[in-house]
């Protein structure tokens, strides 16, 4: 599949070159050659890693659980997530991560549309209500701006997982967070979305952005006192990091003035800021060989986001 080869190129690009070799001032041509060589080596060692290879073990420090829902109507939601092996996939996805303690990740009924990291329990709670709400707000046919149903459900759900994972990592790894932690968690989420090629990046970033686009912004003065940024701020933050990391794949958002030029100008720099934060604070806790294998897997399936 030519798509798979393309995605491998991009993946190699981000981690091997951009993150680890950012300080090496090599020419463009040399860079392309190095990436190509690295990709060849990767591919020969991995042969065809298009779908989940059985040898990629789950992270033994991630304990997953699908908790029975309180409401009957969430039963079907749980069954769907179970059948899709969402948490099993997540545990495998996290296999490169060296955690100092056990992280619990569970799907459950929360009584509200949300997802949480609970520091006292070292646990991420993904609420059935949140997933059901995504299915409710996802457009049945593509919106005029081009957001599709699959993108909203896939991107929105992965964003919730990655955002909470951000809180969990900041806490468990004692990571310095200078800015607003909520934005830091969003940045980690967007950054992870950008590590699996252009297609995955577009699906997940667009979906995540849509969820903030449809939320209500603060109006009164005291609403600005909230610990989260305004949904509109978060919307632009995601698009900006995406454009900074994958200018080609997200150029249309600038061309259509969805991401204003004034902000777009700073997006490369914003992406570099996040990449540096990731490289300095999280990468030391990651097994790089395993990470490359995780990056070579096609995590999304054509059936994802469908009922």
């Amino acid at each position, binding site marked *: 599949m030519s798509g798979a080869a393309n995605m491998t190129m991009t993946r190699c690009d981000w981690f091997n070159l951009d993150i680890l070799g950012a300080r090496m001032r090599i020419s463009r041509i040399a860079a392309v050659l190095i990436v190509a060589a690295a990709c060849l080596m990767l591919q020969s060692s991995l042969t065809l890693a298009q779908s989940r290879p059985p040898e990629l073990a789950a992270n033994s420090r991630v304990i997953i659980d699908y908790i029975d829902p309180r409401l009957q109507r969430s039963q079907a939601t749980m069954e769907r997530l179970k059948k899709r092996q969402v948490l099993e996939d997540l545990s495998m996805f996290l296999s490169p991560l060296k955690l100092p303690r056990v992280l619990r990740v569970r799907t459950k009924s929360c009584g509200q549309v949300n997802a949480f990291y609970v520091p006292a329990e070292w646990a991420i709670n993904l609420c059935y209500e949140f997933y059901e709400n995504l299915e409710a707000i996802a457009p049945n046919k593509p919106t005029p701006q081009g957001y599709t149903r699959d993108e909203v459900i896939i991107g929105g759900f992965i964003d919730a997982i990655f955002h909470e994972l951000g809180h969990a990592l900041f806490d468990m790894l004692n990571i310095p967070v*200078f800015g607003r932690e909520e934005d830091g968690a969003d940045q980690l989420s967007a950054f992870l979305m950008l590590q699996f090629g252009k297609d995955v990046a577009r699906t997940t970033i667009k979906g995540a952005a849509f969820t903030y686009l449809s939320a209500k912004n603060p109006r009164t003065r005291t609403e600005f006192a909230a610990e989260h940024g305004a949904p509109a*701020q978060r919307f632009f933050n995601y698009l900006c990091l995406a454009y900074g990391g994958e200018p080609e794949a997200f150029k249309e958002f600038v061309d259509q003035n969805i991401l204003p030029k004034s902000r777009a100008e700073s997006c490369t720099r914003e992406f570099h800021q996040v990449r540096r934060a990731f490289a300095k604070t999280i990468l030391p806790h990651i097994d790089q060989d395993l990470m490359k294998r995780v990056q070579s897997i096609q995590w999304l399936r054509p059936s994802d986001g469908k009922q």
Partner: protein
Amino acid sequence: MNGITRLALALALIAATLWAAPLQAQPTFGPSKPGGPEAGKPAPGKVFRPSGSETAAAPALPDGDWGNFLVDVAYNEPKDPQFLPIRERLMRRQALEQLRLFLSPLKLPRKLLVQIDQCNAERRPYQPGGAVTICYEYIAKVDQTAPRNQPPDGLPREMMMVGAFVQAVLHEVAIAVFDVLEIPVWGRESDAADKLAGFIMVQFGRDVALKVIVGASWFFDASDRAWSETDFASEQSPEAQRFYNYLCIAFGADPASFKFLIDQKMLPERRAQRCTNEFYALRLAFAKTVLPHVDQQLLKRVQAATWLMLDEPK
């Protein structure tokens, strides 16, 4: 809602208590707590001036090799003559020379130029490897915003002027420091710079914290505006968010001294509950990323100096 009106009551209250009693310095960071709380004893008659730079009897700041050698400062001559009085005022107060002294504990790997310049905008964002710039236009805006006819028991307009100036300088320097020291920053850089600036503001005792944080927040309050959809695309946060962020740092650092923020409903209870934890996170970030680049001996000296005197020489 008119911010100035909303704040007036609370500010009058602070004004009434601010200079009434000798204030205790409450240094809050570092592996070891610096001992000398001489900071924060008001000595009227000077503005933004460590006492050591003028009087021989002053404590802590010695003559001679003081100031960060790697920090250069410049008051560039503005093309527009309307900014000349601002330039003269800042030069007279040695505002940037004070900053050089203030930054002396910071171990920089390269030279850093801090300049005041005409930008034809209120702000000239720092570019990696470049200079830190404070714009005459920004200072002029603060001057215009600071109310001239304050009631006798109200806060002096100089409080806003000094607070907003110190805030802007520390904010811009923080962004440069993130770049120069290659500090990992999670969260938006501009918010992170406010956090670092706020953290520094509360390291010099209650007196300095009150003056600068209240002064800076007062300016954010007074320059608050309605934000529409595309405004939210800005990499800067809305004035209202920055207002609350600074107050939250102050309350998180010293709940006793800043309890009035909650009593006066300036800081909503819901946010206030989180400020202590937010401050711990900020302190952790500082300790892990910036503190390794700080000379502890010099830091203690800087903390022991008297920095911010509000009363403007008229």
